[in-house]
C-alpha cells in the first residue's frame, strides 16, 4: 500500500506542544518493554535514568556541565541550519577554538600574567572556531563545494592537528612523553561557581548566548535575512540580501560559538590539552539543534535532556549493571520518537489511491 506524507497547514499550537510529550510517553512504553524483556524492573530503571541524576546538587551540576557545550554549539548550528547551510563540522571548529585559545594559556604558562588571560583565551577560541568555520563557507561561495563534505572533512584535519601539537611541540616536558600539555595555570582556568562540584563560568556564557541568539534570530533584520535565505533564497535575493554574506556570517557565528565551547571545555573540566577533548559534542549538538527546533530556548531544553540521557545511562550501568548498548538503544528510541512525533504533527500520512504512474 503506497503511502505519502502530506504537509499540514494550520497546525494548532496545542498539537505542536504535545508532540514531545507524546514522544516521551512512547519512549517510556518502548523502554518499559525493553527493560522487562531484559529482566529489569522498568520503574526502577526510569527512576535511575531520569530522577536520580536530578536528585542531588553534585549531579545537577554535572548535568549542566555536560549540557553547556551542546548548548553553545547547538545555538551556533541553528544560525547555519535556519539559513539552509549545513555545517556538519562543529566538532572541528570546537577543536580549532580550543587549540588557538590554549596557545595563549601555554604561552603565558609560569609567567606573571594577570587575570586578562582567560578572557583573551575565550576571544581567541571564538576567532579560532570562526576561522575554521569560514573555510567551508569560502569553499562554498568561491567554488560551489558542498559545505556538508568540506566542513566534515575539516573535523579530521583539526583533530589530527591537535594530535600533532600535544604529541610534539606542546607536550608536557615532565610528562614521560605522554601526549598531553601541562595543566593550565589558575589564571587560564574557568572559575568554579560552587564550592564543591564542577559547575564553571562557561554556563553563564552559554546562557548569555541563548538570550543574544533569541534576540538576533527573532527580532533583527539579520535574523530575518538568515530565515529568508533558508526558506526562500530567491525572495531573499530579490529583497537585496547578499547570499554570500549570509553564508560567511552564519558559518562565522557557528564556528565562533563552537570554538568558545571548545576553549571553555579545555579551560574548564579538562584543564589541559590532550588528544581527545570532546566525546563528539560537535555531532551530538546537531541532534540538540534539531530537537530544539532551531530555537535557542528549545536547544537549551534539548541539551539538558540529552545530557540527562547520558548521565542517566551511566547511572544505569553503575547501579543496574545494564550494558552500555542498552543505554544507547534507549537514547536512540527517545530521539526517534521525538523526530517521528515532529513529522506526524506537521505532516499527514495519506494512502495513495490507484497507480497512475503505471
Amino acid at each position, binding site marked *: 500500500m503506497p503511502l505519502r506524507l502530506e504537509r499540514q497547514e494550520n497546525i494548532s499550537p496545542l498539537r505542536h506542544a504535545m508532540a514531545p510529550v507524546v514522544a516521551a510517553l512512547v519512549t517510556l512504553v518502548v523502554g518499559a518493554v525493553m527493560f522487562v524483556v531484559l529482566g529489569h524492573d522498568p520503574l*526502577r530503571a526510569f527512576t535511575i535514568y531520569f530522577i*536520580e541524576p536530578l536528585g542531588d546538587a553534585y549531579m545537577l551540576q*554535572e548535568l549542566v*556541565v555536560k549540557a553547556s557545550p551542546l548548548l553553545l554549539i547547538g545555538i551556533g548550528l541553528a544560525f547555519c541550519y535556519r539559513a539552509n547551510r549545513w555545517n556538519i563540522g562543529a566538532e572541528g571548529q570546537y577543536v580549532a577554538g580550543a587549540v588557538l585559545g590554549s596557545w595563549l594559556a601555554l604561552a603565558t604558562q609560569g609567567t606573571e600574567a594577570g587575570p586578562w588571560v582567560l578572557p583573551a583565551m575565550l576571544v581567541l577560541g571564538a576567532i579560532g572556531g570562526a576561522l575554521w568555520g569560514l573555510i567551508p563557507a569560502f569553499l562554498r561561495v568561491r567554488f560551489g563545494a558542498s559545505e556538508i563534505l568540506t566542513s566534515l572533512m575539516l573535523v579530521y584535519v583539526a583533530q589530527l592537528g591537535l594530535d*600533532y601539537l600535544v604529541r610534539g611541540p606542546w607536550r608536557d616536558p615532565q610528562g614521560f612523553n*605522554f601526549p598531553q600539555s601541562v595543566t593550565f595555570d589558575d589564571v587560564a582556568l574557568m572559575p568554579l561557581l560552587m564550592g564543591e562540584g564542577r559547575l564553571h563560568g562557561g554556563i553563564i556564557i552559554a546562557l548569555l548566548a541563548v538570550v543574544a541568539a533569541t534576540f538576533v534570530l527573532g527580532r533583527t533584520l539579520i535574523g530575518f535575512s538568515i530565515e529568508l535565505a533558508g526558506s526562500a533564497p530567491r525572495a531573499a535575493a530579490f529583497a537585496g540580501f547578499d547570499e554570500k554574506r549570509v553564508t560567511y556570517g552564519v558559518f562565522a557565528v557557528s564556528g565562533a560559538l563552537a570554538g568558545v565551547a571548545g576553549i571553555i571545555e579545555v579551560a574548564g573540566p579538562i584543564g589541559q590539552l590532550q588528544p*581527545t577533548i570532546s566525546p563528539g559534542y560537535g555531532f551530538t549538538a546537531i541532534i540538540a539543534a534539531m530537537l530544539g527546533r532551531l530555537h535557542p530556548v528549545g536547544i537549551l531544553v534539548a541539551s539538558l535532556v540529552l545530557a540527562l540521557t*547520558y548521565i542517566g545511562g*551511566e547511572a544505569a550501568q553503575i547501579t543496574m549493571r545494564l550494558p552500555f548498548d542498552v543505554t544507547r538503544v534507549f537514547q536512540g528510541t527517545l530521539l526517534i520518537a521525538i523526530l517521528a512525533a515532529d513529522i506526524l504533527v506537521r505532516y499527514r500520512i495519506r494512502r495513495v489511491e490507484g497507480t497512475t504512474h503505471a
Partner: protein
Amino acid sequence: MRKILSMAVAIASGLGLAGAGLPAAQAAEKLKAAWVYVGPVGDFGWSYQHDQGRKAVEKALGDKVETTFVENVAEGPDAERVIEQLARAGNKLIFTTSFGFMEPTLKVAKRHPNVMFEHATGFKRAKNVSTYNAKFHEGRYIIGQIAAKMSKTGTIGYIASFPIPEVIAGINAMMLGAQSVNPDMKIKIVWVNSWFDPAKESDAAKALIDQGADVIAQHTDSPAAMQAAEGRDVVAFGQSSDMIKFGPDSQLTAIVDDWSPYYIERTQAVLDGTWTSSDVWGGIKDGEVVMAPYTNMPDDVKKMAETTQAAIVAGTLHPFKGPISKQDGTLVVKEGEALADKDILSMNWYVKGIDDKVPGQ
C-alpha cells in the same frame, strides 16, 4: 493514583531501589569494587581482559565483594564524572583501566580520601591512588623472534594505536627480538590513532599485507586484524586476549594480559586493610603477561620461542639488553647492561633498523 503510588513504593523498596541512598545492613559488609573501561567489554581485547579479571575477583572472593563496571567511557571530562559517580555509589576500590583516566582518577581521589583507586598504565600516584601495568614488551621480544623465523618477505606489519611510550617500547622490543634472529628484518607501522576501531584496524592490516608484510602484529584492542590476516592467509599475533578463534590458521601466539592475580590480590588487600599505594609492573614471571599456545609454526620455531620465554622468566634475558642503538646510531645501552625501567616507561625513540619516524617527533 494513590494505589499506583503505593505499589510503586512497594516494588521499589522490595528491589532495594533506595540502595544508593540508604545502604542496607548486609551491603555494608560487602566490599564494593568498580571497574572503568575505555572500550566495550565485548572488544575481545583490552577491556575484555580487564573484565575477565573482574569476574575472577567475583569468583575468588565470592560473597565478600560486589563488583560493578562502566564500559565505553571516553577519556576526558566524562571519565571524571563516571569515576565520581562510582565513588559516590559507595565503591571503596575503583580500577580505572586506561591511560587517559589518569588526571580524572587523581581529581576524584582527592575528593574521596577513603576510597582506594588503581590506575592502569599511568605514572602519577597519590596516597590512595596506585598504578599498575604489565611488561608487554617481554612478550613482544618473543613474537619478534618468531616473526623473523616465519617471514618470507622479511617484513613485519605493525598496527599501532597511539605513539605513547608503552606502544613505542613494544615496537622496539619486537624489532630487537626480530633482529636477534635476522638483522635485516624490516617493519612497517600504521598508526590508527584509536585503541578500538575494528574497521580501521582491519584496513590497516590489509594495507600492510598489500605492502609486502607477511607477519602481522598489533597494539590495538580488537581481533579485526587477526581476522584480516586469516582471510589473506598470512600469519599474525593476537593482542591482549587469545584470538585463536578469530584466526585458527593464522595465530602464531598472542600476548595475553591476565589481570586476575593482581585484581584478586589488591581486592584482598582492601578486605584485609593492608592496601597501600604502590606501583606494580609485572611480567611473564608474575603471570600478568601470558603467552597463548604457540601454534601454526614448525617445531624448531616453537622450541626457540619457549627457550626465550624461559630465559625471560629466569631473568637471564632482558628484552632491552645492550648493545642498543638509536636510529641515528647513538649508543643508548652498552653491552652487558639493560635499559632502566624508567627509560622504558618514557621511551620516545626507535631502535636502529626501523625505517620510520616516531609521530610528533
